[in-house]
C-alpha cells in the first residue's frame, strides 16, 4: 500500500486572496476563446461525418441476394433493455418462397418503438443472424406516436442490404441438396 503523503497547502499571497489576478486570467481565457473559430456545424446544410461504428436507428438488413435475414429468434426482443422491440414470429410460407423453405422461420411482424429505443446497440450485438444493425440514421421524427413505431417494412427500407460474409443459409441449402454419402 502506497504511503499517503500529506502536502501542506501553500498559503495564499495577498494578490491571490483578492482573487483579482485570477479573475483577470479568467477574462483573458474567455476572451481568447471568443476569438477562436467556432466548431458549430450549420446542421441542415452541413452534415457531420458519421463513423462506421455509429449507433443510429436500428434497422433490419437483407443479405446480398435481397433475402430477409431475420429469423425472428427474438433474442433482440429479449435483450432490449427498454423493451422497444416487439416481434411476432411466424413460419415461412414454403409455397410462396420455396427457395427459403429451409430457413423455416421469419418474423411476421417486427416493430421497434423508437420512442422507447435507447440506441444501446445490444440488439445488434446479440443478433445471431447479423440481421439487425444500428446504422447512420440519427435524426428521426414523426407527428404521432404510431409513426414512431417502425414496422417491418420501414425497418427494411431503412436497412437496405449489407454485404454478408458467411452465407449461412446458402451453405445449409447446398449441403441439404448434396445429401449424405450414405
Amino acid at each position, binding site marked *: 500500500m502506497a504511503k499517503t503523503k500529506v502536502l501542506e497547502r501553500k498559503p495564499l499571497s495577498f494578490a491571490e486572496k483578492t482573487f483579482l489576478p485570477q479573475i483577470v486570467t479568467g477574462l483573458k481565457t474567455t476572451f481568447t476563446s471568443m476569438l477562436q473559430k467556432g466548431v458549430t456545424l450549420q446542421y441542415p446544410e452541413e452534415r457531420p461525418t458519421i463513423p462506421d461504428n455509429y449507433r443510429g436507428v436500428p434497422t433490419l438488413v437483407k443479405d446480398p441476394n435481397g433475402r430477409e435475414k431475420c429469423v425472428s429468434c427474438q433474442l433482440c426482443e429479449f435483450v432490449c433493455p427498454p423493451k422497444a422491440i416487439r416481434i411476432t414470429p411466424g413460419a415461412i410460407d414454403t409455397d410462396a418462397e420455396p427457395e427459403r423453405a429451409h430457413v423455416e422461420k421469419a418474423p411476421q411482424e417486427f416493430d421497434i418503438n423508437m420512442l422507447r429505443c435507447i440506441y444501446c446497440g445490444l440488439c445488434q450485438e446479440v443478433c445471431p443472424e447479423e440481421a439487425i444493425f444500428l446504422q447512420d440514421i440519427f435524426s428521426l421524427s414523426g407527428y404521432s406516436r404510431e409513426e414512431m413505431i417502425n414496422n417491418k417494412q420501414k425497418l427494411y427500407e431503412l436497412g437496405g442490404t449489407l454485404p454478408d460474409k458467411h452465407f449461412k443459409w446458402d451453405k*445449409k441449402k447446398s449441403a441439404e441438396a448434396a445429401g449424405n454419402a450414405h
Partner: protein
Amino acid sequence: MNIQSIVENITINIDGQDVEVPKGINIIEAVKMVGKGKEVPHYCYHPKLSVAGNCRMCMVEMGMPMRDRGTGEPILDENGVQKIGWMPKPTIGCATNASPGMHIRTNSEMVKESRNGVTEFLLINHPLDCPICDQAGECRLQEFSAEHGRGYSRFIEKKNVKPKRTTLGPRVTLDDERCILCSRCIRFSKEVAGDDVLGFVDRGTYSTLTCFPGKELSHNYSLNTVDICPVGALTSTDFRFKMRVWFLKRTHSICTESSVGANTEIWSREGKIYRITPRRNDAVNDTWMTDSGRVLYKAIESDDRLTQYTIEGVHKTVDEVAAAAVELLQAREVALVASAHSSVEEQFFYQSIAQRSGATVSLVSHYAEGDGLLLSEDRTPNLRGALVTGLIHQLPEREAKLEALARDINSGAVKTIFVVNEDLTKLGIHKEMLAKVKVIYVGTHANETSEVANVVIPSLMVYEKDGTFINQSFRVQRFKTAVPGPRGVLSDFHVLERIAAPLAQEKVAPLSIDDVWERMVSRIAQFDAAIRWSALPEEGVALDASAFLDLNFVESKNLKFDPVAFKETSAAPAETSATIATEA
C-alpha cells in the same frame, strides 16, 4: 419407480458427502436428493420411463469399499479407514443403482472429460440452428453444451443431412438433424401411451427417428413426446414458432378435461396463453397429460365469450345484476342447475344460494368413454367438489337429461331457473319451456340458454381465476390465475357473494379466496382446519372420502387411480385421517 414405496434407506457417499437414499434408487435420482442444485446431466433418462442408457451423458465415477477377495475382510489404509476401490472407467448414473457404502464422484476430472467428449460427439451432426429452434431456452443440449461443452468445434467434415420439417402426426413435427437419439419418445409411446409407432432406422451416425411405415404419431398423448424431447427434434405443430419460452410466465393449474385433474403449467405472456404442459404429480398424472387437454385454453378467445353483465339483454353493472338475481331468488320456487365445472369455492356458494332460496338442485353429468390413462369417464373436473360441499348428495343421472326439472316447469312448480354453464336446450328443456320461467345464467360462453336468459352473469374460465378442484381420488388441487379475464368481469365467487349474502340478509363481504376457505373449513367436515388456499401444497391434499364410498362413481381403472383399491384404502378411516394430518 415409486420412491415412496421403498422404505429401506442406505447410505452412499456422493462427492465426499454421506447421503441417505432409498435402496435401489439410481445415481441420477440419488444425486438429485443431495439438493443444492446438484445434478447429473442426462438426456435419455426419464424418471417415468425405463432406463435406456444410450446418451452416455450421465457418466459418474463409482467406487466400492475394498474387501479382500479371499477372506472378505475389509482392506484398510494406513489410517485404518476402508479403502475405496474406484472403477477404472466412469459408469452411467442412470443404470447404476445405489448400494450400501457406494462412493460416487460427479465432478472429477475424468467425469468432466467424459461429459465434454459426449457433448462434442452430440454436437458433431447437430445443426446448431438455435435461432430458429423452438426448444431454445428449454433445451437440455443447449444448456449442457454451455455447461460442459468445449465452446468450439473441431469437426471440419461435412455434417450429416437428415429429414427436416417432417410431420410425424397431426400435432407433432420432427426435425431429425436435431435428434440426439435418446429414444425417450420411443419409450414413451411404447410404455406409457401403449401405441408403439416410433423407432430408429439406419445405423451409426445415420440413425434416424421415424414412424413405422404406414403409422403416424396420432394418439392422444403424442405431445408428451414433445415435452420429454430433450432437444428440439420433436416440436409441437401448434406451438411451433409462436413464442420464445423465455418470455412465457408459468402458472400452476389443473386440467379441466376430466376428473383425473392432471396438474398443468400454463405458459402465458401478457395475458395471452401460448401453451399448456403437464406438471409432475406422481399421485395424479406423473409427468403426462392428454393432447386434447392442451387446447382447451383456446376457448378463452372464442367469439361467443360472455363479457357483459346483462339484464334482459341490457348491459348493467355487477351490483345491478346481482340485485336482480337476488330478487328472482327471493321469490322462491327456484331450481338450480349446478355444474361440476365450477370450482369448489363456487359450488360452496351455490350450495348456500340453493339452501337460502330453497332451490331444488340438479347437476348434469358429462360422461364419456375413458381411455384408461389420463382421460377418465367423468369429463368434469369437480364432481367430487359438488359432493363434498353438499351441493348434491347423489351422483347425477348417467343420461344427461333434466326430466324432473322439465316436469316442474310444466307444472308451474318452478318459476326461476338458476343455470350454471349448461345449455338447458340440449338437456330436454326447450326454449318454449324456458319462456315460462325466469332464467339466471352464469357461464363463460354464450349458448341457447344464455340467449333467452333474463339475467346473464359472465363467469371466468379456469385460467382466469383462483380456485380448487377435487379430482377422482378426492384430492383437492389448486389452480391459480394465469391471465386476466375479460375486462370488468369479476371472479365468480365475488359475484356469488353479492347474491348469497343478501339472501340471508347479510352484508356483502369483500372476500379473498382464503376468506372463502375459512368459511368452507368451518362448514365442511372433510376440510382440515389447518388448510388455507394459499398454503395448499402443490401436489394437492387427499381428503377423507369415507363418506362417499357408497356412491357408484363411473371412473374405471386408469393410470393412477384404481376405484377398487381406492375404496379399500379409504374405508380404513384411521389411515386416511393420518394422511390428511401429515399432508396438511
